[in-house]
């Protein structure tokens, strides 16, 4: 059985903190903080306002996102629709010399037929999701074998040029991490203006699902890199060294 926390140690620790702060009793009220006291209904209203704002500014935000993403090292491509998107994905995979292209099992792939486009190029699409044909335990190994990883995203942040990817059923952590080339498919409605927007939405979701859904999330803001040796930048260390952002629409 796993190691459960020592409750006594916890109690004593917290008491020592109280003493250090000059308190004998625990705080009876929530400390003053701009957002901590906001209850779910207000948070939902806040998110509605954010969504409306982003919708009104969408075209401008998309331009800003693509520009910033390029600055951050994404290769950026804007295509008019799903057919062009699928073709762009296949071309990237072909140019990368891929034989196996892994993808998540997200709804976007029902509309964007990357499987068909890849097969036309002679590249084998792998769906990295557990189900009838595949067991969860196989996924890690397969993601290390693939040369390309393709996913949809939850959000894209114009402020930072980031794609926000939240793992779930059908979308593993490794599919966007292990292959040396990563392709993110983004749709206009997903584009958010700022970090604040995404955190407001996530807070709302956390309050709604009360910690049931996974807390895990990544902001991917360019290719993997390091400057640890002589402060010289090297691209593509443990994560993908080549990252593509395809805006569909």
């Amino acid at each position: 059985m796993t190691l459960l926390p020592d409750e006594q140690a916890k109690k004593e620790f917290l008491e020592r903190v109280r003493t250090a702060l000059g308190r004998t009793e625990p705080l009876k009220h929530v400390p003053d903080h701009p957002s901590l006291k906001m209850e779910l209904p207000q948070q939902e209203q806040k998110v509605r306002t954010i969504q409306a704002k982003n919708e009104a500014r969408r075209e401008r935000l998309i331009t800003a996102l693509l520009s910033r993403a390029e600055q951050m090292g994404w290769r950026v491509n804007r295509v008019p629709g799903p057919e062009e998107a699928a073709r762009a994905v296949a071309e990237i995979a072909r140019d990368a010399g891929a034989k196996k292209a892994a993808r998540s099992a997200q709804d976007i792939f029902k509309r964007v037929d990357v499987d068909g486009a890849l097969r036309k190029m002679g590249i084998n699409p792998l769906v990295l999701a557990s189900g009838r044909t595949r067991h969860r335990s196989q996924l890690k190994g397969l993601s290390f074998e693939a040369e390309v990883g393709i996913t949809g995203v939850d959000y894209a942040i114009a402020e930072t040029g980031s794609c926000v990817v939240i793992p779930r059923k059908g979308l593993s952590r490794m599919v966007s991490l292990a292959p040396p080339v990563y392709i993110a498919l983004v749709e206009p409605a997903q584009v958010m203006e700022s970090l604040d927007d995404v955190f407001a939405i996530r807070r709302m979701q956390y309050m709604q699902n009360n910690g049931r859904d996974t807390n895990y999330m990544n902001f991917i803001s360019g290719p993997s890199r390091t400057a640890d040796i002589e402060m010289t930048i090297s691209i593509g260390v443990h994560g993908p060294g080549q990252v593509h952002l395809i805006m569909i629409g």
Partner: protein
Amino acid sequence: MSEVKSKEFQSASKAALNDKGLQRLLGRVVHGFADLRDAAVEEVTEPVWEQLRERARSIKQQTLANLDYYLELVDKSVTRNGGHVHFAKDADEANKIVLEIAKRHDVKRVVKSKSMVSEEMGINQVLEANGIEPVETDLGEYIIQLAKETPFHIIAPALHKSREQVSDLFHDWLKSQPTNEIEELCRIARDELRDKFATADMGITGANFIVAETGTVMLVTNEGNGRMTTSAPRVLVTLAGMEKVVPALEDLATFIRLLPRSATGQRISAYTTFLGGPRSATDEDGPEEYHLVLVDNGRMNVLKDPEMREVLQCIRCGACLNTCPVYQKVGGHAYGWVYSGPIGAILTPLLVGMDEGKELPFASSLCGACKDVCPVKIDIPRLLLRLRGRATEGGNGVKGSAPWIQKLMVRRWFSSVKTRQAMNRSAKLGRLLQRPVARGGRIKRIPLPMVSGWTQQRDFPALAPKSFSEVWRDSLDKP
């Protein structure tokens, strides 16, 4: 607790200055980081940057003032998320917890992403002693792990290693071909570590921030090792100092805007990773089990100490190191412990004790460049001065311990400036005594203890034949 060598600062700093290879590298790289940071801040514009700093300072200060509430909230949230939260009083206790988790899960190999508190703990040695293989996955940490050294810089642990030295290390330990190409060296490390990620039983991470409300740990990385460590192994442990807490998710936006710019001049790092529990039932991958270990290891005393508490605001960006004229010359190893530079000069005496660390607060010219760049507005010079007061005179449970010769000379000096008459008398005596060594208004050699160091490389001015006060009285004091 890992070994502390801060008492050796004098000799270690001299050795660093005499190391020509190190000096060449230091000159290039440390200024590089500082320049990148300045450019990134300029892009944000100063008024916006100042607003961010003030907001960050306020968030951290408020959190520390209510840390009991927020730590309890972290416990509730992470537990709600399905994780386990442990509270460790010191390095020993923290090591025991990690070891026990590893043993219960039959862990043979651990992959680690960056954690400064794990360096305080010396967890790698503990794991090794128990037949478990710890693998550092941050490239800089991996290099110093192979070299069996401590980190040279908070952000870039292997800053002091030339590519030739890295190539030699890889050749010795990994049997790779020697190479002068940095890209090739990175590829060698990547291939080696890829296998470790795939086969590790447990991952250990640090935490840049912990959100109390949602039980979310945030990691700021560039390589992808943080993502690998939190995705591939079946057991995951986060080690964090108890001061890493911030109240709300939305607070993270401020810190994301400050930390990467301050550390490496980036607008945002390649990966910002959020975690806070095991994978959910429907997730395709991720750890089955999650533990968060919150560590005291001396921080409680700092929290209790109103004069020093603000040092706990530190977000470990390393900007103070990059801008420090002392660090720029001697590098990180001279400081003798995990944390170096201006912040290290404060943290070391506070966390490991003044007896070990008392040289460090004096190893500063108090220029204040660090204070200007600190994203959370820690008044580093003021804190250094307070530690100097404690080191010399005692206070806050510390016994004053200036060397007796220094105390003697200071008392003499004090008596000679207590009154104008005393000053005039001492000056008269001084002018007499300096005659053998003063030439043309300069003294080439001062044969006195403590101050003789001046004249090794510099002339010292001779006392003027008449002080200003005498000149004033004789000729300037006119109605």
